[in-house]
């Protein structure tokens, strides 16, 4: 058995006869700084270039930030420029890690929707990257001087100019996604940015080549934590923070539920009246005090499409995410001839995931403009029943002037009858953690239709059945502002839509 020392000595002796160039290794490649500078350059490329495929736009900048940190860490004692870069890269790494995790949460999505916050953080991120580039240039020119004190050829200065061009084009693209110049400007801008990025990359490479045969006196700093350790900590922290972010951070902030209180005498009377008219008790229980008072003196109550055993399309129940949801629509005829519509939903079996829920209604657009919107969520927490108002938001409602030519033609009769497009109310919320038997409704009033006429419309219920990254705001999507629709499972349209609602006839007075 050959001892380790003997093996080492023999190997030194043997290798003397196999110079590195005979196995493809060039002597110029053996430098104190090569690993550090290589990390820095790759880090710069990864944090600058945004590849929007397979989630790489989230992963690569974090990888780049780690590489930058590792590279500057080794050079931190060489000069103050590199030391400053090291500090900045540490700050940048923490910011990117938090941003990577944050993008799975509602809070981040909400903050990024605030222009001052979005532009402020974007500017901070750009400033960090720009300062790192600037200080890197200073550090290289200081550390890689030749014997006569001449710094290396300054390719990085041109690279910084190219980088600023890419940043400016990216900012322009964000500010004005559809530029006035049309398609030429839109695509021209993209290709110019791509070209500048390629130039940036080539200049970085040139700069690295210009360091050849220099910098042998660079003082690289020993480290206590290996690069693998830094990677393990970064990835471990990211994973550890991402899981709660996806499961809990993606829940929407909802008002804390209030315990149910006894109804006032007037509301109790109204409720009794509705039960007599045929509204099921479990649906009457969902109504708020205010809505019960609105229905005071109701004269009729009818479900729009009675579930019929052989008519599957109108089955009110649907399975969603290991749960079972029931929906129904009721029309309550009020004394003044108007009709209050109630679109109910009830979870008969609670779903597995409690992230985002969306409930959207499309009132009949041939009667009148829907008005007086309200909604409530009710659930059991332990032995106690709690309620919380649903925040009703509206889409639709555009006037003819606000629509394009095609839409004005398409919605011509609706615009003529209502003066604008019908309002479509919706609510987004999260089912309460630990809550059971949750249910709720959206309500509005229509008026002026002929008794006996038919009313129709649409009801949509959306449920987020799995965590998703990045966070996609269901409210934004329902408002028509784009989003990841295929992330949300929904009750099939024909299960909850309401049809053949009959406008009530006024009961004859004695």
């Amino acid at each position, binding site marked *: *058995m*050959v001892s380790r020392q*003997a*093996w*080492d000595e*023999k*190997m*030194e002796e*043997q*290798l*003397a*006869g*196999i*110079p*590195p*160039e*005979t*196995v*493809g*290794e*060039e*002597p*110029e*490649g*053996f*430098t*104190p*700084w*090569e*690993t*550090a500078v290589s*990390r820095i350059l790759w880090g710069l490329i990864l944090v600058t270039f945004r590849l929007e495929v397979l989630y790489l736009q989230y992963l690569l900048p974090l990888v780049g930030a780690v590489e930058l940190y*590792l*590279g500057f*860490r*080794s050079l931190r004692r060489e000069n103050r420029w590199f030391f400053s870069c090291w500090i900045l890269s540490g700050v940048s790494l923490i910011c990117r890690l938090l941003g990577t995790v944050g993008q799975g949460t509602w809070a981040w999505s909400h903050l990024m929707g605030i222009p001052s916050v979005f532009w402020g953080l974007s500017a901070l991120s750009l400033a960090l990257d720009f300062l790192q580039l600037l200080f890197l240039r200073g550090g290289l020119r200081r550390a890689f001087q*030749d*014997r*006569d004190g001449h710094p290396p050829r300054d390719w990085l200065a041109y690279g910084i100019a190219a980088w600023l061009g890419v940043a400016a084009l990216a900012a322009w693209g964000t500010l004005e996604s559809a530029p006035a110049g049309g398609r030429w400007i839109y695509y021209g801008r993209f290709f110019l940015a791509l070209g500048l990025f390629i130039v940036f990359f080539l200049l970085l490479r040139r700069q690295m080549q210009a360091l050849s*045969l*220099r*910098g*042998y*006196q660079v003082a*690289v*700093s*020993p*480290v*206590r*934590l*290996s*690069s*693998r*350790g830094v990677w393990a900590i970064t990835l471990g922290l990211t994973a550890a923070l991402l899981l709660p972010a996806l499961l809990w951070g993606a829940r929407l902030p909802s008002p804390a539920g209030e315990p149910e209180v006894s109804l006032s005498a007037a509301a109790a009377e109204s409720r009794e009246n509705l039960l007599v008219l045929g509204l099921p008790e479990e649906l009457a229980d969902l109504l708020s005090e205010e809505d019960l008072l609105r229905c005071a003196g109701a004269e009729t109550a009818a479900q729009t499409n009675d579930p019929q055993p052989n008519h599957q399309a109108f089955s009110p129940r649907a399975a969603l995410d290991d749960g079972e949801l029931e929906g129904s629509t009721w029309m309550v005829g009020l004394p003044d001839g108007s009709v209050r519509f109630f679109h109910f939903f009830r979870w008969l079996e609670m779903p597995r995931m409690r992230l985002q829920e969306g409930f959207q209604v499309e009132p009949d657009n041939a009667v009148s403009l829907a008005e007086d919107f309200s909604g409530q969520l009710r659930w059991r927490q332990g032995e106690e029943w709690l309620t919380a108002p649903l925040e009703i938001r509206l889409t639709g409602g555009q006037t003819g002037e606000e629509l394009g030519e095609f839409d004005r033609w398409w919605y011509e009769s609706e615009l003529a009858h209502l003066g604008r497009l019908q309002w479509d109310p919706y609510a987004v919320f999260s089912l309460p953690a630990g809550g059971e038997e949750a249910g709720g409704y959206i309500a509005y009033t229509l008026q002026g239709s002929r008794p006996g006429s038919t009313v129709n419309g649409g009801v949509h219920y959306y449920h987020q059945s799995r965590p998703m990254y990045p966070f996609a705001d269901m409210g934004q999507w329902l408002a028509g502002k784009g989003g990841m629709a295929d992330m949300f499972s929904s009750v099939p349209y024909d299960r909850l839509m309401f049809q053949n609602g009959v406008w009530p006839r006024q009961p004859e007075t004695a």
Partner: protein
Amino acid sequence: MACDLEEILSQYGGMMDYVIRGILPQRQEAEECLAEVRKKLAEGLSSYDLERGSLATWITAVCRHAAIDHRRSLARRREAAMEEDVADSTPGPEEALLQKERALRLRQALMTLSERDRRLFYRKYYYLQSTAQLAAELGTTERAVEGKLYRIRKRLQRELGGEMW
């Protein structure tokens, strides 16, 4: 081929210092060795043939040999006079042939390593850089370097069919 020595030293001086200091960490010893290398370069430059290899390759080889020789002579001076059996140090023809075969097999084995592993191996066993220096320059810990070298050694031993000698 005649090259200007000053020009050579200006261009490659940093690299020469780096190679020598890896083997002779003490500043004074390194400078003594560097002086010897300058003499050798001055003597050999005029007859250096570029077709044999790049100038950088030849210079690093000169630096390395000079530094190792310098280190050995320092070791001999420090130890009690232990004469080596000089008469037996020159290999016979059979031994020379065996050494040549071993070198060929070793070269083939080195080619099976990744570029990064091979470079680390050369830093350790050709340029004789310390583990501490390797760790600092690679941005990792000495323990990680030792672990990596251990795995490379094991791999080479497997490629060379077990123990080398």
